[in-house]
């Protein structure tokens, strides 16, 4: 895709674009009457700038006095607020686009830095024209509107398995680490304040502690962007992630405690105990609230399949509600929304359609990105425009102590927690953890929420900004080369192979079993217990369709889906390339019907249908044929030679990765490899969902020896169109992957269709897609029996 072949021109365009937009926004800001500066000058400047404003057309309605109908009017104040809002967002987003023009910039300088930089520039412009930026980073706007999307995103996409494996460590670092940092920094700064020469005498201990609490909040937003780019190993990732999220609980408590205490002349020991109690209320309360809302959301999603248009809405509304209610009670809203998201995700994603699922994920990501972009952007803007108080000593010592205490803290904490971990943190990991302790916008917003009656508030604000800028710029830019230099263990996230999943599962079962044998409890004990509870109770209540799906199967589906979608994407994306060429490149030996790219979807679907039909025809034949011999034991099939069938249907050597079923069907049980496989078409037969149409009865009628439940089994399945609208993306690749090998055989087998005569509509190959819970109860035990039946007979 070489559309951006000429970076020079594009950059030029980009620059023009950005200056245009910058100018736009400056005028927008200038047109903002919501600022505290006197409105007279505003109007004056508005009037002056109006002719230059490229946005507004040249019209002077106020000059048009008279009783004629005004042909053209303009009313800016009416649309002002949403208009400016949109423009700010656009500006921030344009800068994001602009960064990616030069790939190299984003590699070396993290996006957060760039955004702050642009924000600084815009802030500078606004300051020079003596305007105030919109009040975005005020406490309410920040905490109620800008923070929730980011936290929702973190919670929704949290990798749950590593998280729960490391939950102890995460909580340890979050709670104890934050405490350590706050108290350490607070005390050291207080010590510094004692020196007269720095002119800091009037900051007492409580205020220092309060400030220290504010700045010890590590912000995952900033750190994780960088770590994700670098790709550090999962352990560090999840620890920083979790720490950043969960230290909110501690910060909230400490902050309120110290704020409260700052008013009071003295501290009682009772207050310390109350503080601890409050911590538990805050933390545990947040979690419980989140769980509550999560379960309610999951339960709601059970009934939303008729209102798929608003299905995604519930996810957002419930999580936001959780956040707000937590804010109402002043408990940790971040923990509430995270817990809500984690709980909700698991059940909601099973209940809603594929489309809603995609929508939810996309919107979560979008909101979070917008929010984050705006935050960093405004951080830059507000830096220039707030009132600062600069005190070299305080600020430098803040930087020093923040760095120092974090490093020491991580070291000490890791030493304590390492013996309890199976994967221990190496020194390099610890360095990564310590150095990755960036501060971000939460710190800044908290500083703004300081009461005005705290003296030296401006100093605190300045110091926080300085710390944030320092950590984001200096640490943010340097962390990448350092991490690469010291070779921290990188992540191996593409472990998603089926093999790994299967073997890991086996090992888990193994460890479970051995632990049980030794009479020990391991962490699998709790995992198992939870799983049983989940399966027995929770899933029944919260899920519409309670078939459980093992992780292996869901991973397999996911992989096949990805495969198929990639395949479609590559063909759709490039019209000029012949589809057959692309298909051949990706799957050698495949021939595809050529057609318009536009019709590629249809063609694929039709092929799949055809293949399905052929498959069912073959099955018909197969059903009829062996069942005539059913009087012999099932062992017959295991011994069936390939001979007499080969002549009729060429034995095709199956290429790698194709589904076994087609091979079986074409070799009719003749297996060069192992005898047991021939049994499988028999069981496959039972599970193929064939519609009870004209084609099927012939097969059904030959089933007197099948248990009647088998017939029942065959009758079930889709009654509607096999490709239900919302299931299409999932169902299609299923078929695609299962049958892609057979398209070139299509012609060869067409004559066989005559044998089966009727063409039943294509059955759904994959049971779970067929949302037919009623049939499953009957279906599954049969599966078990039939599988066991065939197994047993094989073993004899």
């Amino acid at each position, binding site marked *: 895709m070489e559309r951006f072949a000429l970076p020079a021109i594009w950059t030029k365009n980009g620059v023009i674009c950005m200056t245009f937009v910058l100018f736009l926004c400056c005028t927008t800001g200038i047109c903002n009457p919501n600022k505290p500066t006197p409105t007279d000058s505003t109007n004056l400047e508005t009037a002056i700038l109006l002719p230059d404003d490229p946005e507004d057309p040249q019209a002077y309605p106020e000059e048009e006095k008279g009783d004629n109908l005004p042909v053209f009017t303009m009313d800016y104040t009416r649309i002002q607020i949403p208009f400016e809002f949109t423009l700010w967002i656009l500006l921030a987003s344009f800068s994001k686009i602009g960064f990616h023009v030069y790939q190299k910039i984003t590699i070396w300088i993290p996006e957060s830095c760039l955004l702050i930089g642009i924000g600084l520039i815009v802030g500078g412009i606004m300051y020079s024209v003596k305007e105030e930026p919109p009040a975005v980073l005020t406490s309410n706007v920040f905490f109620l509107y800008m923070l929730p999307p980011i936290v929702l995103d973190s919670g929704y996409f949290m990798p749950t398995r590593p998280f729960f494996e490391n939950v102890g460590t995460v909580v340890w670092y979050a709670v104890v680490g934050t405490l350590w940092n706050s108290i350490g920094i607070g005390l050291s700064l207080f010590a510094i304040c004692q020196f007269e020469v720095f002119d800091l005498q009037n900051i007492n201990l409580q205020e220092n502690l309060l400030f220290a609490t504010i700045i010890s909040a590590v912000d995952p937003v900033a750190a994780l962007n960088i770590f994700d780019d670098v790709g550090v190993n999962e352990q560090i990732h999840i620890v920083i992630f979790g720490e950043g999220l969960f230290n909110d609980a501690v910060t909230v408590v400490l902050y309120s405690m110290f704020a409260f205490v700052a008013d009071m002349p003295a501290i009682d020991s009772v207050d310390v105990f109350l503080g601890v109690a409050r911590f538990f209320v805050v933390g545990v309360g947040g979690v419980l609230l989140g769980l509550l809302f999560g379960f309610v959301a999951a339960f709601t999603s059970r009934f939303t399949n008729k209102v798929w248009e608003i299905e995604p809405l519930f996810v957002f509304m419930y999580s936001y509600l959780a956040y707000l209610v937590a804010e109402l009670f002043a408990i940790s809203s971040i923990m509430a929304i995270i817990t809500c998201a984690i709980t909700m995700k698991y059940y909601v994603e099973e209940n809603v359609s594929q489309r809603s699922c995609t929508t939810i994920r996309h919107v979560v990501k979008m909101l979070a990105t917008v929010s984050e972009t705006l935050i960093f952007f405004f951080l830059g803007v507000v830096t220039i425009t707030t009132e600062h108080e600069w005190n070299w000593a305080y600020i430098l010592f803040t930087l020093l102590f923040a760095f120092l205490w974090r490093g020491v803290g991580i070291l000490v904490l890791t030493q304590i927690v390492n013996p309890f971990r199976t994967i221990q943190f190496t020194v390099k990991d610890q360095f990564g953890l310590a150095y990755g302790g960036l501060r971000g916008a939460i710190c800044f917003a908290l500083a703004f929420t300081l009461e005005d009656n705290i003296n030296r508030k401006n100093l605190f604000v300045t110091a926080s900004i300085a710390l944030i800028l320092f950590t984001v710029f200096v640490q943010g830019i340097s962390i990448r080369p350092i991490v690469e230099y010291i070779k921290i263990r990188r992540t191996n996230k593409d*472990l998603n192979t089926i093999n790994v999943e299967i073997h890991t599962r086996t090992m888990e079962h193994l460890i479970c079993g051995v632990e049980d044998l030794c009479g020990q409890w391991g962490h699998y004990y709790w995992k198992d217990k939870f799983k049983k509870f989940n399966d027995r109770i929770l899933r029944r209540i919260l899920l519409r369709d309670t078939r459980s799906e093992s992780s292996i199967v869901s991973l397999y589906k996911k992989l096949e889906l990805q495969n198929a979608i990639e395949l479609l994407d590559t063909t759709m994306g490039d019209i000029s390339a012949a589809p057959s060429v692309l298909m051949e490149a990706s799957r050698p030996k495949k021939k595809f019907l050529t057609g318009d790219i536009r019709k590629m979807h249809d063609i694929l679907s039709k092929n799949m249908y055809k293949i399905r039909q052929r498959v069912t025809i073959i099955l018909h034949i197969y059903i009829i044929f062996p069942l005539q011999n059913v009087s012999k034991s099932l062992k017959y099939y295991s011994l069936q030679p390939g001979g007499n069938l080969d002549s009729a249907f060429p034995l095709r050597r199956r290429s790698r990765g194709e589904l076994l079923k087609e091979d079986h069907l074409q070799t009719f049980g003749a297996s060069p490899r192992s005898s047991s496989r021939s049994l499988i078409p028999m069981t496959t037969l039972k599970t193929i969902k064939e519609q009870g149409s004209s084609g099927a009865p012939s097969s059904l009628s030959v089933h007197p020896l099948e248990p009647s439940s088998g017939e029942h089994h065959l009758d079930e399945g889709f009654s509607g169109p096999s490709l239900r609208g919302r299931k299409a993306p999932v169902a299609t690749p299923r078929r695609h992957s299962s049958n892609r090998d057979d398209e070139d055989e299509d012609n060869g087998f067409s004559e066989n269709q005559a044998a089966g005569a009727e063409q039943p509509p294509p059955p759904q190959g994959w049971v779970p897609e067929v949302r037919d819970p009623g049939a499953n109860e009957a279906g599954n035990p049969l599966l078990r029996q039939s599988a066991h039946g065939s197994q047993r007979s094989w073993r004899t």
Partner: protein
Amino acid sequence: MGSSSSSLNNVPDGQQLMQETGFSAAHLLRLYERFKFLDKDNRGHLRSEDFEAVPELSENPIGDRIVGAFFLPGQETVDFSSFVRVLAHFRPTEKNRTRAGAQPEPANSRNRKLKFAFRLYDRDRDGKISRTELLQVLREMLGMQVTEEQLQSIADRAIQEADLDKDDAISFDEFRKSLEKVNIDHKMSIRFLE
């Protein structure tokens, strides 16, 4: 160490087992207690019925394979030293152990752990996991949740991913290679109680 080594004398071949497997005396004692608990009839060895008497093990999808792994081929009973030797595979790997070249590979090395897991699949001990064997394990683990076709596809996919020499089976080397990025020590270690 003094008191425990005296009770270690009750453990048959205690010292030798300690050296061989790397279990500490306390671990060994506890395992011996457990062995005696499982050996309800006090025979001094365990039979498969004793293993199956552990309720959770019978619920485990691959329980019978695990039990089978304790029995050496051809044997019907498991004595304490075999018991411990098998369990030694699950000790966490020690990173700093340097061993002389002549010493046999310790039981809890990554390779041995992988071999143990491999043998769970490869019951006929032909050195390869054939498709049937893989299917059996999958069937046991996934049971009622999937259709036969899905099982087939999953097995196919697994073999496709791992099979490098295209013999439609997974040899031990291919097995090891497919798991090269997985932290086996983490996944296959138990912290034994004392």
